[in-house]
């Protein structure tokens, strides 16, 4: 008699479970770094920041009575209005019986914090909604919200140059400008021969050579380009003014954000704060995280949103 598999199936492990686990891939979080986080906000839930005007100039003639103008002042308000939680529990019986309990426990605990940080990333991307929807949001004669002018409402280099124009006209600092785009924007850029064949628009080695293992794409028209998967998706018709005037509709379009200095402001009241305890009532280990903060569009002139379809 042979020791074959047919007659000795009890010696065969037909289904083997690995020691390792397969996890979902996670996107790099980076929008947070372009928010100016205020630390001088120790209590209360509303922060007021006074706004100041420029001063005026009048003509003067010899011997005339002098004119003293009142400066114009205003107010910017930031509220701590985001309060999130995330949690789970491990019942005692699962801990007794599961081979994977230690892996699951450590994995899900760190994902509580990750989930809240992703929520914050999404909230920051949602600040594009601080602009008026379906409106060019023109400031100093240049649109700050428009649909990509490429065929099929995809991005063109002219769109990026128009974003630069918008910030320039709005007196936004030239340095530290970034844009956060959907990867489909990078895809479109890689179709443009001027971009991938020569460095006429900046040092775009990353785009040309197929990225560099990071979300950094390259530098176009004074913007450092980063890819993000957290950007909002909207459907809007916007009638743009010059340059590149005309009405376009972006359907399920990515709201790519071109940002200058101090576009967003935020205050973190409570960083993700992990609590873990044993609940005698349910015989379970409980893990729970909360986070509380507020964010807002601080300088509308520092934000340009370009809506592009995939």
């Amino acid at each position, binding site marked *: 008699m042979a020791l074959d598999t047919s007659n000795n199936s009890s010696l065969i492990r037909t289904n083997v479970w690995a020691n390792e686990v397969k996890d979902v891939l996670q996107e790099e979080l980076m929008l947070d770094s372009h928010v100016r986080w205020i630390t001088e906000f120790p209590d209360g839930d509303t922060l007021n920041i006074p*706004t100041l005007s*420029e001063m*005026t100039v*009048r003509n003067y003639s010899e011997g*005339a009575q002098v004119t003293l103008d009142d400066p114009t002042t205003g107010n910017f308000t930031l509220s701590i209005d985001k309060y999130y939680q995330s949690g789970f529990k491990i019942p005692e019986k699962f801990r007794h019986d599961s081979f994977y309990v230690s892996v699951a426990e450590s994995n899900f605990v760190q994902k509580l914090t990750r989930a809240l940080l992703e929520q914050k990333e999404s909230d920051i991307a949602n600040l594009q909604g601080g602009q008026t929807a379906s409106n060019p949001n023109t*400031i*100093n004669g240049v649109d700050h919200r428009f649909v990509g002018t490429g065929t099929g409402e995809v991005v063109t280099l002219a769109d990026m140059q128009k974003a630069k124009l918008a910030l320039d006209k709005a007196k936004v600092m030239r340095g530290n400008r970034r844009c956060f785009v959907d990867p489909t924007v990078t895809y479109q850029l890689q179709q443009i021969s001027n971009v991938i064949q020569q460095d006429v628009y900046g040092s775009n080695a990353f785009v040309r050579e197929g990225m560099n293992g990071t979300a950094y794409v390259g530098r176009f028209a004074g913007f450092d380009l980063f890819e993000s998967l957290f950007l909002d998706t909207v459907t809007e018709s916007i009638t743009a003014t010059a340059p590149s005037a005309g009405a376009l509709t972006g359907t399920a379009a990515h709201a790519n954000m071109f940002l200058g200095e101090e576009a967003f402001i935020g205050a973190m009241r409570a960083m993700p704060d992990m609590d873990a305890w044993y609940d005698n009532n349910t015989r379970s280990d409980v893990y729970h995280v909360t986070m509380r903060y507020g964010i807002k569009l601080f300088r509308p*002139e520092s934000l340009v949103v370009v809506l592009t379809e995939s």
Partner: protein
Amino acid sequence: MTQARSPAGSGAGTGIGAEFIADATQIPTALTFDEVPGVVNTLSPGLVHMDIIDGTLFSGTVESTSADFVWNMTAADKGRIVGITYANGGTAMDSTNGWELNFINDTQADATCAYFGLGSGTEAAKATDKDVAVAANTTVTLSNSIVTTESHFNRGDIIQVTADRDGTAGVGSFRLLVSYESQGHV
């Protein structure tokens, strides 16, 4: 005095616009500021004295064109212009030399408050209310026949006076008589 620095709206791209941050939008917005009158009339005695002197007028007056003089005052309360007392200098107000005095309410869409003509020249004849010749070194009193509610002003309204000249030799001064009433501009 007039605004010299262009607002950003009309002066966009020039880099000279004065701006403030609007509360509602938080967007830098062109700053426009009111003209500052050279004269503020008072409740008592309710008279504003203004001198018309060739070339250099009193404080706060701006020569807007070669022939026009424009200045402002702020109304201290509701009321209307009752009239003027004009003291003429050494040149007769006639067909050669004279003044057109046009009082409008700058705050209320330039509503006409009063309209006087001194002399009978081209400018003086424009005045629809009064048009009188004044001999040299003579004083005349003119009453304002415009009594509509539109001609009244409210507290804080800026009353703008434009003087257009016939000739260049006219010199004189006038006192503006203001009546404070319960009726304001409507």
